[in-house]
């Protein structure tokens, strides 16, 4: 039974304390919530709340003019361990929060919450905030998607990448028409200034490697439709699934590593097919001219402006505007990691993560989900290993495989314990070790079940022995039956 414990501090600034507090400040309280995934699996979440009033320093920080400044000033005063949250309750009339906004979530692990009249109403609001900042029932369900019954999973949940020890990110520039376009992109600079900060932040979650390539004569799998009105070419939403396959053959496999690959393709359409626009389901053009494919990556179409005169000499030189491209790709990257910011209630204001690309609490959000997913993966792996052993009785488990299994079990137990103590970082590390050990045990080459001779075939080999031996036994059985029948009949005859 997995229990997720979120240590949380609720700090009341003067004038924001609700009237119906059960005890004088400071005091502790616990709230529990049950997230059930299927009949057998459920996860309990437990919020350990510490209610207290502000210190002098915090009061000074909260006196800042804007929420951003207050957030920055409060950051050094907080508990910075991963997974912990701090909520600052500000008076109902506070000018820190803009009009109509009740919750401000900062760049770090804290939020400013506007006070409401009663404690119950405040707790309801706090629950909403904590779910945004740590995990929701749906994010846990997505992490356990293998166990969720088929129909019940939201389409979003299928989009998220599976938890892995590492990811490879490949940016590919597709130039299907190098005769007409020479395309240059400063990918090196773009990766350094846009992608690297995000990945540095994510480096705690997994290893990332980034590379890029340019592919020539790589075409999409569908021919776009010509639209006379706009004199442009259109790709409709329903044809997008067919776009990727022929391109993927050219992308090249990640032969040198076992990590999943995230592909981001920038497609510069041929001269004869440009400009090219992507249409959504309703037929309206997509503003970013991009789409993403769940667990695979994203594609963006980059149109080249037609030259002023048709006689302009070919090839046309194109310099890609990397800021525009990277904005789309980074949004897709966040989407693939389940860090979309779209499902937030309107009264919430989320601070943009700025240069780092990722807020601290978003990292926590990812860690919660990945820890739960890792624990689930380990238990599935070990269960299937146990099933395999049950099936093949004479399988040999070598000592190193056995020790990996023991290590996996120990690590997963420690991960569960750490989770119930609220130590997110330690729990995540332990769950990662558990995944590594369990996978190593499961994929050990000595456990290939084809190496073992199936029992039913042994019987087939000895059929030449069993069959002739069975014949006299069966015959004598038949004879016994016949004789007992005769014996039964005979007495009646005698009478």
């Amino acid at each position: 039974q997995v229990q997720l414990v979120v240590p949380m501090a609720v700090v009341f600034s003067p004038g924001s304390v609700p009237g119906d507090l059960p005890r004088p400040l400071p005091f502790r309280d616990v709230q529990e919530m049950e997230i059930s995934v299927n009949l057998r699996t459920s996860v309990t979440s437990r919020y350990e709340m510490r209610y207290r009033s502000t210190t002098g320093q915090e009061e000074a920080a909260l006196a800042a003019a804007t929420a951003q400044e207050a957030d920055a000033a409060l950051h050094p005063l907080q508990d910075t361990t991963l997974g912990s949250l701090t909520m600052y309750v500000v008076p109902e009339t506070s000018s820190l929060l803009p009009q109509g906004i009740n919750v401000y979530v900062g760049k770090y692990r804290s939020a400013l919450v506007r006070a409401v009249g009663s404690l119950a109403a405040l707790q309801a609001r706090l629950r909403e905030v904590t779910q945004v900042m740590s995990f929701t029932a749906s994010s846990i369900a997505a992490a356990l998607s293998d166990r969720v019954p088929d129909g019940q999973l939201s389409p979003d949940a299928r989009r998220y990448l599976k938890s892995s020890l590492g990811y490879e990110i490949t940016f590919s520039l597709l130039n299907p028409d190098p005769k007409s376009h020479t395309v240059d992109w400063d990918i090196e600079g773009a990766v350094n200034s846009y992608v690297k900060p995000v990945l540095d932040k994510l480096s705690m979650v997994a290893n990332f490697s980034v590379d890029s390539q340019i592919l020539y004569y790589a075409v999409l799998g569908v021919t776009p439709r010509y639209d006379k009105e706009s004199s442009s070419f259109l790709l409709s939403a329903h044809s997008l699934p067919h776009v990727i396959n022929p391109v993927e053959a050219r992308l090249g496999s990640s032969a040198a590593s076992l990590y999943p690959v995230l592909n981001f393709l920038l497609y510069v359409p041929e001269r004869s097919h440009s400009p090219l626009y992507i249409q959504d389901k309703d037929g309206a053009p997509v503003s970013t001219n991009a789409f993403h494919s769940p667990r695979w990556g994203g594609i963006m179409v980059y149109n080249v402006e037609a030259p002023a005169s048709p006689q302009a000499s070919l090839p046309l030189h194109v310099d890609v505007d990397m800021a525009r491209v990277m904005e789309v790709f980074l949004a897709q990257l966040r989407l693939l990691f389940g860090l979309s910011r779209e499902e937030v209630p309107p009264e919430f204001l989320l601070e943009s993560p700025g240069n780092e690309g990722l807020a601290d609490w978003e990292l926590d959000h990812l860690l919660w989900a990945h820890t739960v997913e890792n624990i689930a993966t380990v238990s599935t792996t070990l269960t299937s290993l146990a099933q395999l052993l049950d099936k093949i009785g004479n399988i040999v488990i070598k000592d190193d495989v056995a020790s990996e299994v023991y290590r996996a079990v120990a690590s997963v137990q420690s991960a569960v314990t750490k989770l119930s103590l609220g130590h997110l970082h330690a729990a995540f590390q332990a769950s990662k070790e558990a995944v590594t050990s369990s996978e190593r045990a499961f994929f050990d080459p000595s456990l290939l079940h084809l190496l073992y001779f199936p029992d039913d075939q042994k019987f087939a080999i000895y059929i030449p022995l069993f069959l002739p031996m069975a014949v006299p036994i069966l015959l004598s059985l038949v004879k016994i039956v016949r004789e007992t029948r005769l014996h039964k009949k005979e007495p009646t005859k005698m009478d």
Partner: protein
Amino acid sequence: GGMAAALLLLLLLVAAGPGRGRAGAGRERRDTLREELLLSPLPTGDVAATFQFRTRWDADLQRGAVSHYRLFPKALGRLVAALGVRELHLALTQGFWRTRYWGQPPLQAPAGAELWVWFQPTVTDVDKAWKELSNILSGIFCASLNFIDSTNTVIPTASFKPLGLANGTDHHLLRYAVLPREVVCTENLTPWKKLLPCGSKAGLAVLLKAERLFHSSYHSQAVHIRPICRDASCLALSWELRQTLTVVFDFFSSGQGKKDWSLFKMFSRTLTDTCPLASQSKVYVDISPKNKEKELLEVSPPPTSVHEAVVQGDKKTYAVYDLLSPSLFNTSRSLNVQLKWKRPQDSSEMPIPTLHAQRYVGGYGLQTGEICTLIYNTHPYRAFPVILLETVPWYLRLYVHTLTIITKGKENKPSYIHYQPAQDRRRPHLLEMLIQLPANSVTKITIQFERALLKWTEYPPDPNHGFYVGSSVLSALVPSVTAMKDVDVEQSPLFTSLFPSSDGSSYFVRLYTEPLLVNLPTPDFSMPYNVICLTCTVVAVCYGSFYNLLTRTFHVEEPSRGGLAKRLANVIRKFRGVPPL
């Protein structure tokens, strides 16, 4: 010493450079592509076509975590960077290059798959890197290179020197393996073509149509990766990827009896446009006059220029078609190079190459045998040494004391011998020798072996087909008849510049002999089942009779009064009116 200093300087430059280098990186092209097709009529009337695609990248692959690829294929670049590869040579070949009749090939490869790799000195566990590399390559090229293991890998000491820039040749960083059983087909060609920047969509690669390429008597495709000097001062490294493909079409024997050919006849395609990424794209046709008779051949359309060079000791003349020159496609939309012979050529005077070799298995029976190698030196007055590398699987147990080398009836003592005996199921025999070949001589090398008995699970499928022994490798500096000039690698045609030329008086040749097919004593694999069947039947019959004996109850029965004789007698008695018996 000089090289080490240069490398140190390079390190310093790299450490100081990145800030400045990055600013201009987007603009300047740091990689170039050259492509080339060499068409050479062979003495027998066949035609050999050699494609070479050379991608040169002025960057150090093995530095920096993030890598950005343009023309250089990412799959191979990642491999070189991740596994610390210094030099990689992979060849997949179908058929055998008949040196005796076809002459010296520009690039030869043994039948099957050949892989040899030099690793960086920083690689600590070379065997592990080698295993990993062969597995990854097997995935990239869809070949069974994953069957390369310690039983077919050797570490040659003298035969394979690095072809690229190298400081130090510690042969423990080298691994060499040949899989002679490997069959090469379209599934290997497709990934090879995918590595080309223009794919098979434009440029010379348009001609690479699988159904024609494999309808030939020899097909060999290769990938060579090596570091080279960036410029003459050699202060910086560049990486070079050469993809080569050699194919021999047999027009003369397969039909019309004519030796005329054209691009369309060979590839069923013509050249229509160039690859826009290539900085050089040329077709060379070998029109060297033979036997002092000039103007025997006629090529059309007229070539853009004529190139003369000394290649492998012979003076050669090439007609050159530069696909990038605008005049070529002006007159017609496509280029179909045609060659006509003005007079029927008498094939009696075939030039014999200076060095060629032949190998076969001798002996009879299934217990012992003999490997014979004949090496010919046809040079009229010059002797030269040759390095012979022989790799024999462990299940042929070589007897080194039976090794004999005989030239002109006399024993020829090799000046260098390196022999590493096999270990059963662990490593093969390796025999390397430096042999002096006198002028105009045949050298016969024989060594006897005993065939081992394998365990029944060790036999491959279809064991009665026999077991292959990989080609032996001959490396030699062959003295040249004509003096050669030192040429600039960047300017000269690609087919002359893979092997480094040492000096003007000799040229490097690497030859491969025929692979051998040896029969091993093969058991009857159905025997265990037959034995089981037979014994089981016997046991079952015994069991049956015992069972019957033990379970039957025996009654003493009155002898029946029936019987045919008695019945007959009764019938007769009835007729006679006598009472029956």
